[in-house]
C-alpha cells in the first residue's frame, strides 16, 4: 500500500524547495517544447505538402532564374494540369526591420492551385482587378510592425528588384488571406506578375522565374512527369530540377545545415541540467526523511513500499512541474509567434511535441527518484533510525 498522504506531506515539508524544483521543471519542459517547435516548424512544410503539386527550379541554384518561356513547355508535358510561377521579391517595409516575404505570382492560377489560401470572393475579385493590388496574410496584417489594412496603399522597397527610378513599389492591399495549412505561410504578400514584369521592363532586364509550381492530373504518373520536365531542359539554356512539393521543402530544410542539430544539443543540455537538479532535490528530501523511513520500516512497511514512496514523490514533483511547463508553452504560443514574427513564421506547437514533453516529464519523475529510492529500500531500520540530518 502506498501512503499517499505521506507523499503529499513530504513534498510540502519544504514548500520553498518544492516550489523551486517545480519551477525549474516548468522552465525545462517549456524549453523542450520551444526548441522542438523550432524544428517542427521548419519541417512543417514537408509534412503538409500537397502530393499533387511539384516544384521546378534551376538545378544550379536559387539565384538562377528560369526563362518565362518554360511555362508553356511545362504545360505541354503529359500529366500536367496547371502551372504557375513565383518570383522572390525580397523587399522590406520602411526599413530592414520590416523585412518579410513577398512573391510575384499569377493571381488566378495561384488561387486555383493553392486551395489552402482562403480569401473572400469579393476580396479575390478586387485583387484580380487591381493592377498593383496585393493580398497579405492575416498574421502579417495583424502584426503591429505592419498593421496593413484593406484598401491601404503600402510602399515596399526591394533591393533585389528596384524600380527604374529607384523608388519604392506601391501596392494596394485588396485582400487578407487566411492559410488553412502550415505549408502555406500566413505572413506573406502576393502581388501580380504583370505589374512586376511591366515595371521592370523599363530597366531593360525583364525578370525571370524563381520557381514554377506544377499541379499534375489526379491519375498522373508523378515520376514520369518529373523525368519529362527535367528532360525538356537537359540541354539548357537553364537546366531544371523538378521535385514533389514535399521533396522541395525537405531540400530547403537541409540548407539550414547543422542548425537543427545544434538545437538538439541545446535540448539535451537542458535535459541534463534539469535531471541533475531534480536528483539533487530528491536526494536532499530523502535525507530528511531517513529517520521516518526507519520508523515506517520498523513498523512493518516493506522495502518495496518505501521504494515506491520515494518514486511517488519524484513522479508527483515532475508531473506537476511538467504540467505547468506544458501550460506555459501552450499559453505563450501566440506571444512567441508574434515575437518571432516574419523572421521565423509559423511557430505552432504540435500535439506530438506536447506528448513528447509530457513523456519526458514522467520519465524524469521515474529516473530522478531511482537513486534515492534504491538507497531507501536497501536501508536497514537501525541505520535509518540512527541517522540524524
Amino acid at each position, binding site marked *: 500500500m502506498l501512503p499517499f498522504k505521506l507523499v503529499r506531506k513530504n513534498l510540502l515539508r519544504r514548500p520553498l524547495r518544492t516550489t523551486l524544483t517545480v519551477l525549474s521543471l516548468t522552465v525545462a519542459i517549456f524549453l523542450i517544447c520551444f526548441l522542438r517547435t523550432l524544428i517542427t516548424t521548419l519541417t512543417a512544410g514537408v509534412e503538409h505538402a500537397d502530393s499533387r503539386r511539384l516544384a521546378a527550379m534551376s538545378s544550379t541554384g536559387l539565384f538562377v532564374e528560369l526563362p518565362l518561356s518554360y511555362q508553356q513547355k511545362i504545360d505541354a508535358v503529359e500529366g500536367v494540369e496547371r502551372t504557375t510561377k513565383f518570383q522572390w521579391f525580397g523587399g522590406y517595409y520602411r526599413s530592414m526591420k520590416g523585412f518579410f516575404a513577398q512573391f510575384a505570382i499569377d493571381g488566378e492560377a495561384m488561387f486555383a492551385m493553392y486551395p489552402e489560401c482562403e480569401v473572400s470572393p469579393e476580396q479575390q475579385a478586387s485583387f484580380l482587378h487591381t493592377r498593383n493590388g496585393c493580398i497579405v496574410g492575416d498574421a502579417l496584417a495583424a502584426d503591429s510592425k505592419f498593421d496593413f489594412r484593406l484598401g491601404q496603399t503600402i510602399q515596399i522597397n526591394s533591393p533585389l528588384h528596384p524600380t527604374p527610378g529607384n523608388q519604392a513599389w506601391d501596392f494596394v492591399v485588396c485582400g487578407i488571406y487566411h492559410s488553412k495549412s502550415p505549408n502555406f505561410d500566413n505572413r506573406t504578400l502576393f502581388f501580380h506578375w504583370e505589374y512586376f514584369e511591366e515595371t521592370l521592363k523599363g530597366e531593360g532586364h525583364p525578370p525571370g522565374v524563381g520557381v514554377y509550381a506544377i499541379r499534375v492530373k489526379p491519375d498522373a504518373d508523378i515520376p514520369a512527369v518529373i523525368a519529362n520536365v527535367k528532360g525538356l531542359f537537359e540541354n539548357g539554356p537553364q*537546366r531544371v530540377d523538378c521535385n514533389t512539393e514535399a521533396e522541395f521543402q525537405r531540400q530547403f530544410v537541409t540548407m539550414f545545415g547543422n542548425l537543427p542539430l545544434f538545437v538538439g544539443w541545446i535540448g539535451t543540455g537542458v535535459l541534463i541540467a534539469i535531471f541533475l537538479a531534480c536528483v539533487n532535490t530528491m536526494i536532499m528530501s530523502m535525507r530528511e526523511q531517513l529517520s521516518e523511513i526507519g520508523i515506517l520500516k520498523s513498523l512493518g512497511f516493506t522495502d518495496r513500499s518505501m521504494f515506491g514512496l520515494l518514486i511517488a514523490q519524484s513522479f508527483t514533483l515532475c508531473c506537476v512541474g511538467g504540467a505547468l511547463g506544458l501550460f506555459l508553452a501552450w499559453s505563450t504560443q501566440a506571444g512567441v509567434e508574434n515575437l518571432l514574427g516574419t523572421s521565423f513564421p509559423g511557430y505552432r506547437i504540435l500535439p506530438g511535441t506536447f506528448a513528447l514533453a509530457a513523456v519526458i516529464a514522467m520519465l524524469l519523475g521515474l529516473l530522478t527518484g531511482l537513486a534515492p529510492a534504491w538507497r531507501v529500500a536497501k536501508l536497514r531500520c537501525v541505520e535509518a533510525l540512527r541517522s540524524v540530518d
Partner: protein
Amino acid sequence: MLVPIAYNLRSLFVRKTSLLLTVFGIGATVAIVSGILALQQGFKTMFIAGGRDDIAVFLRPGANSEGDSQFSRDRGLQLIKNVPEIAVGEHGPEASMEAYLAVLLERSGGGLTNIPLRGVQPATFEIRGDEVKIVEGRNFKPGTDEVIIGKRLVDRIQGCRIGDSVRLNTTPFVVVGVFDHVGSFGGEIWGDLDRFCATMGRYGPNRVIARLKPGTVIGAADPTKAMFSETPIPPVPGSMADRLRDDPVIPAKVMSESQYLSAQTVFLTFALISLGAMLGVVMGLAAIFTATNTMLSALAARSREIGILLAMGYRPIPIFLSFLFEAVVLGLIGGLVGCLLALPFNGIRAGTMNFQTFTEMAFAFRVTPFVLIVAVTFSLVLGLLGGAWPAWRAARMRPTQAMRRV
C-alpha cells in the same frame, strides 16, 4: 570580523553528491550559453577578419548585399573609369568586377546546400595579394571553365576535390586548385567572371571592388545602421560616397569592405544573441533555483554551526557575506565546469544558411577569451542570485533557535 573563508570552502565539500549535482547543473547551463556564443563568435571573427579598410565595395544604389546588386558589364567598366580614387597598379586600375552566384551542392553527410560562387577577374588576385593563397593545385586560367575551391569546403561538400567537376547549368567546371582565406571567401568557389555570367545567364557582375589610393576617405554611412533606419542616413558630405550616390553617370553605393562584411551577418548575429540571451535567462533561472535549493539544504544541516558562530560574536553581515561567498564559489566551480564542457566545441566546423545572402556559411565554433569571460561572469551571477536568499536567512537566525534546531 569576517568568518574564515576556509570554513565555507570546507563546508562546500562535505556533501559531495549535492555539490557535484549542483555544479554540473550550473555547468550545463553555462556550457549551453557559451556554446551559442562560440557559434556567434565563429562567424563574427570570420567575417571581421576578412574585411579590409583600403578596399572599397561598389553596389547598385539601394542594394544591401552583393546578391541584391547587379550592374551590366559596361556600367561596371564605366564605374571603374569614373572613380579617380582607385589605385593604379602595373596593369591599370586595381579594380575588379565580381559576380556573386550560388550552386546547389550536396553535403558530405547528405542534404543540399547553396554554395556561394564568385566570378572574379585577374585584378581580384592583385588586390587581394597574399590574403588568398593557393594551398593545393594551381589557380584557374582566366577565360576557361576551371574553378578553385575554398579550403573550408573541401571535406564538407561532395565533389570539391581537385579533378572533380562542378556542373553549372550545362557546363562542367573542373576543379584545379584549393585556396585558403581566413575570411568568408574560404567557403566559396571561385572562377572566371565572364564564364560564370555566360553559363548562368547573367548580364553582368554584382559588384565592383577596388583598392583605393592611400588616404582616401570613403565616408559611407554605417551600412548596418542604414539598413535599419527608416530614413536614409546620408554619407559624409563631400566624401567619395556622397559624390557617387548622386553621380549622374553611374550612381553607386560605396562602402569599405570591413563595413560591408560586418553588415552581412547582422540577422544571424541578432538571432543567435537573442537565442543565447533567452536560454541564458530561462535556464539561468532554473540554475538559480537549484543553487538556492542546495544552499538552503546546506543551511538546514548547519544551522547549529551558524548558531555557534552567532553566539561566538560574529555579526549577521559577515555571516551573510560568508554564505554568499560560498554560493559564489559554487557558481564559479559550475562556471569552470561549463567552460570545460564548452571547450571541446572549439574548432568544430559547421555550416548553415545565412538568411541574408541565402548561401551557405562555413565556419567553426570559436571559444574565445570573450566567451570564457562571459561564461564565468554568468556563473558568478547565478551563484550570487542563488545564494542571496539562503545567506539572508542564515544571517537572520537567532543563536538560541539555531542551536536548538536539529
